[in-house]
């Protein structure tokens, strides 16, 4: 095993971690605040990828496509939250799982109807590469890593330094008591859901140049996304980031060591972590409600 291969694998793992983080931060926030397992986040991930494909093909600009994808998702997520999801917030978590899984399936069906079954390619918007310790690293992968770090900092800033973020953190602790203070928790739920969905769409946008955009792309990443959320601890943004880093590296380095490890090793890591800390790395008793 040579050094260049290891460096390539680490960079690949970090960029995958970026995608995992963007996709799972929404899942974590939705569970933290609304106590819902929002399986429709995988639909917004796929929608983001399809919209960036479509707009890029029409305008020639990936960046315009990225913006359009996030705006489209914002509108779709707003409609889904207001018309469908808000009806299950007060119900046991199983209701939200089934309902949002249904929304996901319906959305995937619509994607197949609109775009067909043939996978679509999206060209990388950043060409060229950088040399790190003698290893050529694609510029776009570095961009994805930096973007994920920037989003992490922005989300942390939003949650810790703005009053809306403070309200969300308080709501993660106890939503009823936030409402008793005079805060409209329903509006807070909407903001959180839209933020989560737009981040999921962004994950789809940045992942699109790495993969062929296909209707089932959301389904195929589900297992890894749940691993990230569970290892990190539901409701913890820091945990989600750390967990995404672990899963990305385990998948990437695992594949270098022995190909089947890429699929197996993350599950093994999850099992070990859960045996030691059943709430996940950064999960707390707060999340037991």
């Amino acid at each position, binding site marked *: 095993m040579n050094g260049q291969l290891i460096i390539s694998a680490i960079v690949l793992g970090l960029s995958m971690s970026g995608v995992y983080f963007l996709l799972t931060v929404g899942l974590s926030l939705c569970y933290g605040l609304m106590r819902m397992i929002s399986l429709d986040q995988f639909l917004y991930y796929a929608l983001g990828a399809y919209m960036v494909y479509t707009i890029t093909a029409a305008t020639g600009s990936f960046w315009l496509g990225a913006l359009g994808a996030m705006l489209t998702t914002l509108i779709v997520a707003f409609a889904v939250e207001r018309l469908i999801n808000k009806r299950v917030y007060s119900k046991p978590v199983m209701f939200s799982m089934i309902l949002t899984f249904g929304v996901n399936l319906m959305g995937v069906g619509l994607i197949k109807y609109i775009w067909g079954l043939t996978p679509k390619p999206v060209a990388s918007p950043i060409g060229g590469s950088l040399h790190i310790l003698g290893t050529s690293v694609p510029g776009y992968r570095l961009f994805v890593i930096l973007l994920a770090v920037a989003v992490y900092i922005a989300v942390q800033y939003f949650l810790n330094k703005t*009053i809306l973020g*403070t*309200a969300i*953190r*308080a709501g*993660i*602790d*106890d939503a*009823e*008591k*936030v*409402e*008793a*203070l*005079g*805060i*409209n*928790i*329903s509006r807070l739920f909407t903001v959180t859901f839209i933020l989560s969905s737009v981040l999921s769409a962004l994950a789809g946008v940045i992942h699109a140049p790495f993969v062929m955009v296909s209707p089932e792309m959301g389904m195929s990443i589900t297992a890894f996304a749940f691993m990230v959320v569970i290892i990190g601890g539901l409701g913890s943004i820091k945990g989600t980031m750390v967990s995404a880093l672990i899963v990305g590296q385990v998948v990437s380095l695992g594949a270098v060591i022995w190909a089947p490890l890429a699929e197996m090793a993350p599950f093994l890591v999850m099992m070990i972590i859960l045996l030691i800390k059943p709430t996940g790395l950064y999960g707390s008793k*707060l999340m037991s409600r």
Partner: protein
Amino acid sequence: MGRPNMVEVRSLNAAYGQSKVLFDIELNIKPNERVAIVGRNGAGKTTLLKCMASLLTPTTGSVIYEGTELVGKRSYEVARMGLKYIDQDKHVFLDLTVRENLELSSYATGDYNWDKVFKHFPKLKILIDRKGAFLSGGERQMLMIGRAILGDPKVLLIDEPTEGLAPSIVDDLVTTFHELSKDCAILTVGQNLSFVSRVAERVYAMKEGKLVAEITDEAEIKNNSYSHYL
């Protein structure tokens, strides 16, 4: 006592599923009055307060606050109207500092005048950057009341305020209740009859979901001579 009622609870019934908890509750509170509801565990005291704060929906009956029906309103609307509920579990937001806890209440009410909070609870100023998780029971109670008085509420519904508190802190609470009632009415519920005797001007005795007596005689309240109702 010619003052009009600020809050009127009329024929209020509540249930958890098939289990009926409150039976035809009739209750009123006048401005700046200190009222207490006493009763044993499971009597329905907390359920009544939660119904009044719209945290629970009664099966029938009404809660009229300054002429407005509260049943059917969301709890945040009720809080913004000036009727605040402080629950018994001393729950402040554990991950938030005292400052952030107060900021949330200020954000909800638009009232950023924290001087009145520090006037009642000067200790909170010292603890301003401490997280809720590291506050003692008494400090949490201070913070919960401090949060609640932002926005100048007209009624405070305080559930079991003395539970788990040291006697010296309970003494301070007595003074605080008297001070607070200069600006708003207080309805408190609990089992600490000694505390009730020192703060309440009027007492309702509650048993098995019913208000079984209303005690207005000062001597009776001071001597806890209503305990046979419980």
